[in-house]
């Protein structure tokens, strides 16, 4: 009986690790490209909130989860575009734009939520459905955890190797890295710095917004304005932990997902630690891992520095 309970607990922890990792990993994969190209996007938190809210409203009103995701993608691209115009073309300080976008998006969503729903928090029925992969899901203990998940979970994790190849084996990835490391040299070689950075930030916005949408439509099936809870910032941390390498970023994301899963598992298991205390652990984990593994951070040289063609 005890063994049965234990294996069930392990399955539950594995499953919720994957679910918890997905939104962070999605946002982090996009952010890895943005940072590699020289853009620190602190607006990621706002983009996730916007993605969660817009997808939720559209899915609820149109009664279609798919259109919710599509709409969130559009919102994410728009926000990436705004961030890009301000920081790439106008060369405005990225930290200011990022925080500004986050404040704007977060309060805009709270505002619209109040306007549309009043004080109610409707639940979206039918959201969060999983799709089982036949055969593989029958594997004991881990089968149900790994192969009975939301389709976006599969998509996210299968994106990791693709993003890795895109970054290290293709011309586009080379350009992204060049633009973040030595924009002037890249420009001299005929790479459009502006355009490459735009692609990177559009990707970042798209994935961050989808991450938010997953949280609202794939994981929780409802929306509350502060549901993102700093996951956008965690994504930035994960990117730095993973040193801008999608595969390592995936491991960083899993670390966080595991900490989150453990938080709820310990509560369920009835271990008497205050939830506030447990909630501190993921952040402490980051600091400790930074101390242990990321002694030298090797930031992309041009991170946070706007590129202006005319000032040579």
């Amino acid at each position: 009986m005890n063994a049965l309970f234990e294996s069930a607990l392990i399955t539950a922890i594995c499953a919720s690790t994957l679910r918890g990792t997905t939104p962070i990993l999605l946002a982090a994969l996009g952010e890895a490209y943005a940072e590699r190209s020289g853009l620190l996007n602190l607006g990621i938190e706002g983009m996730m909130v916007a993605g969660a809210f817009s997808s939720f409203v559209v899915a609820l009103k149109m009664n279609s989860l798919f259109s919710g995701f599509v709409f969130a993608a559009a919102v994410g691209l728009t926000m990436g575009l705004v961030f890009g115009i301000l920081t790439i073309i106008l060369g405005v300080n990225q930290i200011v734009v990022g925080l500004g976008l986050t404040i704007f998006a977060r309060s805009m969503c709270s505002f619209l939520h109040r306007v549309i729903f009043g004080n109610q928090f409707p639940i979206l029925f039918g959201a969060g459905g999983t799709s089982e992969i036949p055969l593989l899901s029958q594997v004991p203990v881990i089968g149900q955890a790994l192969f009975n998940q939301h389709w976006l979970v599969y998509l996210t994790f299968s994106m990791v190797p693709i993003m890795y190849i895109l970054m290290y084996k293709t011309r586009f990835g080379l350009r992204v890295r060049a633009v973040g490391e030595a924009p002037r040299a890249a420009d001299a070689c005929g790479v459009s710095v502006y355009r490459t950075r735009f692609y990177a930030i559009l990707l970042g916005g798209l994935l961050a917004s989808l991450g938010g949408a997953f949280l609202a439509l794939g994981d929780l099936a409802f929306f509350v304005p502060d549901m993102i809870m700093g996951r956008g910032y965690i994504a930035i941390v994960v990117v730095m932990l993973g040193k801008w390498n999608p595969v390592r970023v995936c491991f960083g994301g899993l670390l966080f997902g595991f900490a989150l899963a453990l938080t709820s598992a310990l509560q369920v298991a009835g271990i008497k630690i205050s939830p506030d205390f447990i909630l501190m652990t993921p952040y402490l984990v980051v600091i400790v891992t930074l101390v242990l593994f990321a002694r030298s951070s090797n930031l992309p040289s041009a991170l946070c520095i706007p590129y202006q063609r005319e000032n040579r």
Partner: protein
Amino acid sequence: MTGSIILLAIGKNPLIYFGLLFTRGMGSSLGVIESIIKMIPLLIISSGLLACFSAGLWNIGTDGQFLIGAMLAGWAAPWISNALPYPAYLITIALLGILGGMAWILLPAVLKARYDINEIITTLMMSWVAVNLVTWLVKGPINDLSTVPAQTPLIPSAYRLPMIPFTRIHVGLIIGIATLLGIHWIIRKTTLGYQFRVMLMNKKAAMHAGMSVPHLTVYGLLISGGLAGLAGAGDVLAVKGLFQGNWNPQYGMTAIPLVFLARLNGWAVIPLAFFFSFLAIGGEFVARDLGVPVFFVHVLEGLTLLFFAASEYFEKKWMHR
């Protein structure tokens, strides 16, 4: 402009909204006083940020340092107030706040100085740790068990910060403006400030000129952390009167962009800080009158930040011609 479109979209008259925003926020003495009180923590936090941003150090976790300072003040004030004479008590609490804020940034500062670990990340993480830590402390060890919500005991009004004579504004305003201009002076006129500015321009040059970059890093971050903690202690001592769990005003979200917009100029921080606190206060009043949700003010705040930031570009372009 964009704000008006949003208002029209939900069927409220933007002219009335903005009219009321200004008459409430600036037209009435109550609005002005409230805005000034709200501005005080912004001023103190901004002065700390002025120091570290001028050295190219990004302390993004002021909210955590603020909360630690506030928590310490709320915890210590009730029993220190009986043990010490009033002036000594005030100074002790202020020091506690400063030390709390400094303690909270010490780890990021040392990591940055010794191992060059990115301080944006560590300060941000420490901030989240602080949010959860103070909630936990207030619910448990330092809870005043006689009240239902988790909070520290109320500080009697005799032991709050004194008011500036003939006003209802507490002396924090003087402290805020004094620290701000003091830091401004340090940055512009002293050796330490000069070294900070060299560090901002070119870290390698600073190193080769014989400046100790690790020491400067620690100083810059400690100053900003300490002042954020002081702001927290001040807010508890003057405005709140106690420390509550789940209380996080997130001044940093406003103060950080504000210092950038002021272009690291202490004088420019004052009107900007007033403007943002006026927005917050005016918005709260109008929310009650017109039924426009209070979040709308933060929408405006975010928009203003973005527009101010964008206008900087056009200004620069215009100056180059």
